[in-house]
C-alpha cells in the first residue's frame, strides 16, 4: 500500500503540487485523472523518486520513499512506465528487457521473467534482436510495459499509456494491464488524459486540478459524476455532446 500524505512539490520556485494526499491499496487499479498540466505526471515522477518533495511524506508498506533515489525505489518494488515510453533506442529489444531486470533479485530470474513477457506480447519475441528504436509506437509501448515488469514489481505506475496510440491498440494494452492486475495481484496506478478509458479499467479514481486533489471515489461513481462529465467527458447536463 502506498500512502501519500500532504505533499508539496516544486519545480524551482514554482509550486506544482499542493497538499496532495492519496492512498493506493494493494491489488487495486487506481487512476489519477485531470487535464494537461494539472500535476498528474508530477505526482508520478515524485513517487518514483525523480522529483523531491518539500513537505509531507510518501510511504510504501510503511517504508518512507521520499528522499530515496529512483533506483532504490525500484528495488523496493515500484516500477514506472514513463510518459513517452523512454525505451533505450539503440539497444535491442532483448537488451531493453534485460535492463528492466537491473535490480539484483530480478536479475537472477530474468530468463523466466522474459519468457513470461514474451507470452504477454509475442511480437517482442519475434523482434528480440531488433534495435528498439526501429519498433512501431505500439510495439515500443509494449516493450516499455515489459521492461517495467522485468523488475518484478509489487506496484506499477503508468504515465499516459494511450498517448499517440490507436484506440484498438490501447484497448489491447488495457486488457493486458487488467490481466496482470488480476493474475499477479499487481497494484496499478495509472495517469491518463483519456478519462473514460481510465475510469473504465480502474477500481478507484482521484481527480486533480491545478495541483490539488479535488475529488475521489469509486471509478463508476466518478464516471457518473456530473461535474466530471462536464469537465472531462465533454457531456453537458442534458446528456448532449458539447
Amino acid at each position, binding site marked *: 500500500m502506498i500512502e501519500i500524505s500532504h505533499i508539496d512539490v516544486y519545480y524551482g520556485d514554482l509550486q506544482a503540487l499542493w497538499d496532495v494526499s492519496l492512498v493506493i491499496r494493494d491489488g487495486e487499479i487506481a487512476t489519477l485523472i485531470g487535464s494537461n498540466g494539472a500535476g498528474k505526471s508530477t505526482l508520478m515522477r515524485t513517487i*518514483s*523518486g*525523480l522529483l523531491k518533495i518539500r513537505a509531507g511524506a510518501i510511504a510504501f508498506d510503511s517504508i518512507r520513499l521520499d528522499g530515496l*533515489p*529512483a*533506483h532504490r525505489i*525500484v*528495488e523496493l518494488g515500484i*516500477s*514506472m512506465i*514513463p510518459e513517452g515510453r*523512454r*525505451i*533505450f*533506442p*539503440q*539497444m535491442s529489444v532483448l*537488451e531493453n528487457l*534485460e*535492463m*528492466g531486470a*537491473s*535490480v539484483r533479485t*530480478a*536479475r537472477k530470474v530474468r530468463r523466466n521473467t522474459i519468457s513470461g513477457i514474451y507470452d504477454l506480447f509475442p511480437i517482442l519475441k519475434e523482434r528480440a534482436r531488433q534495435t528498439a528504436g526501429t519498433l512501431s509506437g505500439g510495439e515500443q509501448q509494449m516493450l516499455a510495459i515489459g*521492461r*517495467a515488469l*522485468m*523488475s518484478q514489481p509489487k506496484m506499477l505506475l503508468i504515465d499516459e499509456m494511450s498517448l499517440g496510440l490507436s484506440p484498438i491498440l490501447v484497448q489491447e494494452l488495457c486488457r493486458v494491464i487488467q490481466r496482470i492486475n488480476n493474475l499477479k495481484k499487481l497494484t496499478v496506478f495509472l495517469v491518463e488524459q483519456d478519462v473514460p478509458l481510465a475510469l473504465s479499467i480502474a477500481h478507484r479514481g482521484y481527480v486533480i486540478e491545478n495541483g490539488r486533489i479535488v475529488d475521489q471515489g469509486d471509478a463508476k461513481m466518478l464516471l457518473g459524476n456530473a461535474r466530471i462529465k462536464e469537465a472531462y467527458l465533454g457531456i453537458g447536463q442534458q446528456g448532449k455532446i458539447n
Partner: protein
Amino acid sequence: MEIVLQTIANGILVGALYGLVALGLGLLMGVMKFLNIAHGTFIILGGYLSFWLFNLWGIDPFLSIPLVIMAMFLIGLVFYRLTLSPLLKLPNIGMRIDTSMLVTFGLIWVLDNVMTMLWTPDTRTIMTSYTGETFKFSGMRFSITGLGGLGVAVFVAIALYFILSRTYFGKHIRAATQDAEAASLCGINVHRIYLLSSGIAIALAGVAGVIVISTYSISASGGISWLLIAFVVMILAGEGNINAIIPAGVIFGLLEAGSVLVVGVPYRQAIALLVFVVVLMFRPQGLFAKRE
C-alpha cells in the same frame, strides 16, 4: 611502391596510438557529456607514472600498464567526485558540456604544476633495450614499440567493446548514455555508473600515456597537443560512437602519413587538420555515425 607501403605501415601504427589517445575522451563525452579538456594532461600523467615505475623499479613500460591502469582508475574516481559530479546538478546538457570544459581547463594548470614539481620541466622518455629496434616484414619496417602500441590499442578496444556489449555493467553504461532518467527507473544507479566510467576513462588516458612515453617523449605541459589529436579523432568517429574511435584514429594516422609523402613533413598536421575540416563540412555527424 615500397615507400607507399612503408607510409601505410607508419600510418597504421601512429593511427592506432591516435585512437588509443581518444578512447577515454570519447567515453566521458559519450556517457556523461563531459568534455574533459585535461584529457591530454592525464595522458602525460600516465606516462610519468610509467616513467617512475621504469626508473625506480626497472619495470618494463608494457608490463607497467596494469599498475598504471589501477593508479589512474583511482585518480579518475577522485577526479569525478571533486570536479565532475557537482556539474550533474546543472539544469541542462549544454551547460554541463560548457562548464566541464572550463573546470577541466583549470585543472590543466593544477596538474601541469604538480607534474613539473614532481618530475621537473625536462622532457622525459623511456629507453628500453628494444627502443628504436625495428621488425622487417616484406620490405616494410615496423618499430617494436609501435607494434606494441598497436597491440595494446587493439586489445583495449576489443576489451572495451566486449564489456559494453556483453556484460551487465557495460549495458548499464549504454543505457545510462541513451537515457539516464529511464535507466534510473530501471533500477540502475546512474551515479555509480558515472563514477566507474570516469575511472575507466582516466585509466584509458593512462594506458595511452604509457604508449606515448615509450614511443615518443613527454613533458609536463605537453598535454594540449595530445588533447587536440584526441579531439579530432573523437569527432571523426562521431560523438558517442566509442567502437569507431580506433578505426577513426587509424584513418587520421593514414591521412597524416600520406600527407608526408605528398607535401613533406612540415605540413603534416596542417594537411591532416584540413582534411578534418573538410570531413566536418560534409559529414558533421562523424565518419562512422549511423544515419538518424
